[in-house]
């Protein structure tokens, strides 16, 4: 459910950008999606295929780069992917703190035809 308005937003942003560049069609859209941002790639593509009809995005493919969340160790500074039910650093055992890695949600690039 919650991918619907987000997909509308993706189409709106991509179309605006493509129109400014006088594109006739958008071939593909590359998204960067952190695992903590809570959006499911397959759902975005499903809504996209329906909502994009009649827009410059019609028929475009969505390519998603997923980013695993990482914590930063407060002891030794290592960036690490945490284990289930723990925030401990695998190197030194100190607790990690949250970083912005894994919260990404942006359109990296589009491929357009002119």
């Amino acid at each position, binding site marked *: *459910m*919650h991918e619907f308005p987000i997909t509308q*937003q993706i189409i709106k*942003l991509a179309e605006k950008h493509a129109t400014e*560049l006088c594109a006739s069609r958008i071939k593909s859209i590359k998204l960067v999606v952190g695992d903590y941002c*809570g959006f499911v790639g397959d759902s975005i593509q499903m809504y996209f295929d329906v909502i994009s009809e009649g827009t410059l995005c019609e028929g475009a493919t969505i390519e998603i780069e997923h980013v695993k969340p990482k914590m930063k160790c407060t002891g030794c500074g290592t960036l690490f992917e945490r284990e289930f*039910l723990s925030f401990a650093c695998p190197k030194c055992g100190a*607790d990690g703190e949250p970083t912005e890695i894994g919260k990404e*949600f*942006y359109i990296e690039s589009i491929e357009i035809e002119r």
Partner: protein
Amino acid sequence: MHDVLKVNMMANIHDENDHIASHTNEDLTDQHIYVINVMGAPGVGKTTTLKNIIKNLQGLKPYVIEGDIESDIDTRDLRSLGIDTFQINTFGACHLDAPMIHNQVQNIKFDEKGVLFIENIGNLVCPAEFSIGEHCKMLISTVTEGSDKPYKYPLAFEKADAILLNKVDLLPYLDFDEDFYMKGVRALNKEVPVFKVSGKTGEGFAEVAAWIQERAQEEKTAHHHHHGVENDHHHHHDHDTAHNHD
């Protein structure tokens, strides 16, 4: 032949939501309204918590926006106590977003300075991701949910500006591991105040209300400081880190 071109965009998909949220935030700050985004899983006692806080609130008029997938039971409940309450039904959507709040706020007449509590949809995942114009995110957590929740839903605990640990009157009957819980909370959020409260006995809510009054006062004396919105702008500048994740 068509000319095919790859164009970098680096466009944050939340930008429009965040832009509307900061607009709402400025508008309400100007009207001396302190906005609290109340988040928590279904059944943690969000509405009961609001009633208890409001009972203890001094010198600030309470306003409430109730977000529910459907029904207006909570709204009728709060109105019967004389609290100015407004209903938003999302009919399926799992969180409130900035445009919904922006539209609703246009219809509210804030006749006195005060606090606007926005009770988000009962959900420990999605509400944490969307800024709705708040000055403060308040997370209601409970001893009945279990002490592992910070580890399972880290984003909600990381983003919270205040955490209420509710239903502490039930501690004698549960195996809640408070040290494990607090260790998780502190790893995610070093400074966040954690208030132990009980909706049943009313304990702890005077402290919460006092904290809100203090924060609302600080907001008034520092107009330019919009904490919640600043927070949400961090991830706009993280494109570099995004590429280094391997």
